[in-house]
């Protein structure tokens, strides 16, 4: 058991610290950053399931995020339902959308598939931003804060634990895709679909299931995010920028690893929060950090494809070698 935990030392440290933080730190800004790190980490982990573990690189995951955000917002503002119900609705719709994307993944390769996911999320963006009657159009939907668990009106510490639970759950889901029989088979599908099929693996079906699951997980994250932030703006929740962000976190942290999305999220969300706070007056700088991220993406993908996880592993083995 101790050996098992030791393998996951990074996760233990991260989740442990996150769990302890609200007990000792009461600064709202800090807790807010922590919640965002956890939520972005979880959303990136959801992306990792489809794009990292199943190898279907999507640039349109904002579609599922947005569905989750809108479902909860619409159900709570129009029909006075609990956002938890909205979450459930979002998951169902996302799974349906995910099956469409999954179908596309079996027809299209690599870049073509990525393009189709962009197109898909853009269609949803346009529909959401123009359908005044249903989604309040381009103005977006403000999400009212009603205290209580069923309405997800929570205090900062409560949000930390909720986000932490989500992040931990998604971490475990990813571990499942790494260590289980399904995980191995999916790795085969990722490497070579035809070879995998010849070994008895239902490649096409497995891909679709992975994408559908990824969609559901993204949707749940979208619901929570919308409830936390308090506003659903169609131009944001369905944007390509958002989709790229999930990818960015995961790739910088280490795509296809369970800790990668969280490492990336820590790194990028912290940097973004810091830059935002420092340059808050100058609106121009709002985009500055994204220029850095764009460059970081290019560099990481080319020179350090295993991301921070890979770098950490290399440093660790070098450290071990020196320590001897």
């Amino acid at each position, binding site marked *: 058991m101790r050996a098992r935990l030791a393998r996951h030392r990074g996760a233990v440290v991260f989740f442990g610290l996150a769990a302890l933080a609200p007990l000792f730190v009461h600064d709202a800004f800090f807790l807010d950053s922590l919640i965002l790190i956890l939520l972005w980490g979880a959303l990136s982990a959801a992306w990792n399931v489809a794009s990292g573990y199943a190898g279907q690189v999507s640039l349109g995951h904002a579609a599922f995020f947005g569905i989750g955000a809108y479902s909860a917002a619409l159900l709570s503002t129009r029909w006075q339902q609990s956002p938890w119900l909205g979450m459930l609705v979002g998951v169902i719709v996302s799974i349906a959308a995910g099956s469409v994307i999954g179908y596309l993944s079996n027809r299209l390769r690599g870049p073509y598939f990525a393009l189709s996911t962009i197109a898909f999320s853009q*269609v949803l963006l346009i529909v959401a931003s*123009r359908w005044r009657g249903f989604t309040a159009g381009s103005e977006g939907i403000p999400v009212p804060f009603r205290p209580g668990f069923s309405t997800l009106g929570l205090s900062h510490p409560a949000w930390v634990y909720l986000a932490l639970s989500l992040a931990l759950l998604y971490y475990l889901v990813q571990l499942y895709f790494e260590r289980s029989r399904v995980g191995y088979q999916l790795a085969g599908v990722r490497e070579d679909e035809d070879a995998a099929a010849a070994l008895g693996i239902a490649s096409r079906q497995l891909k679709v299931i992975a994408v559908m699951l990824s969609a559901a997980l993204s949707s749940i994250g979208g619901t929570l995010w919308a409830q936390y932030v308090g506003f659903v703006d169609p131009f944001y929740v369905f944007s390509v920028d958002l989709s790229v962000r999930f990818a960015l976190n995961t790739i910088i942290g280490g795509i296809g690893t369970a800790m990668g999305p969280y490492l990336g999220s820590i790194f990028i969300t912290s940097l973004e929060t810091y830059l935002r706070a420092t340059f808050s007056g100058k609106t121009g700088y709002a985009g500055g950090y*994204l220029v850095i991220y764009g460059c970081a993406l290019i560099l990481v993908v080319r020179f350090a494809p295993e991301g921070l996880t890979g770098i950490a592993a290399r440093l660790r083995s070098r450290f071990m070698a020196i320590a001897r």
Partner: protein
Amino acid sequence: MDPARSLGPAQIEALAQLAVSTVLLGGIYALIAVGLTLIFGIMRVVNFAHGEFLMLGMYLAFWAFVLWSVDPYFMLVIAIPLFFLVGLLTYALVMRGVISASHNVQIFTTVGLSTALQNLALVLWTGDFRVVRPWHSTVVLRVAGTAFNLSQVVAFLIAVGLTLALFAFMKWTRTGRIMRATAQDREAATLMGIDTDRVYRFTWAIGIAVVGAAGALVAPLYAIYPTAGLQFVLLAYVVVVLGGLGDMVGAMLGSLIVATVEVVGSYFFGAAWKEVLYFLLFIAVLVFRPAGLFGQRGAETLGA
């Protein structure tokens, strides 16, 4: 239907107007798509940053107009060589290393480039919508009951001229033939002594030069802002996919089809929903005829 109602002068005029708008738009889209299909066809790279270079071309025209009162169409003379150089630079810095890398590496490299360029524009010039209004953008020509904007016409003529020039270059010059050979079979080209690195560098630079020029051309016609490239790049991909990757004639025909969908769609459903139409068209083409209406079967699985 009453024959006297079906094709009265009003309907013909409306049809004619639609047709003219379609052709004008199609010509411009063709210029945008042609560079992309070259890059796509010869280098086998999906350039997610293509729209950003268009956006930069628009900004170039804007600042030249605002600072030095240079008309965008004259700016073309500067834009083309300037963006050619930009292409060479970005190739050396960014693209060269990923030509033979996996799809994912290529996707994220150009996505990273796209993100960086978009936000560079945001930082430098803010997100405010900019407008270029030279004298000709308000001149309306009326011919036989149809009306169109002088800017549109000039843009169309220049776009068609450039596209045809590029087409002629590809078809009849030695360099063009070398490029086409590399597109067909990379390895064979290397064996024949073709320096593929030079071909790719040149292809990329031409593609960027053409789309930068297109940006200057459309500056008087559209609002200019950092994410302006997105709508055009998706549209360009619809055209390229429709026409078959690497197929210049296909790109030209595809542009007409997309322009038709847009003009007719706007007429019936309103401008707001036209984007939905061509996204649906895009997905439909990808699903049913991924090699394009004019391309070869199985082309969409080519990637090696």
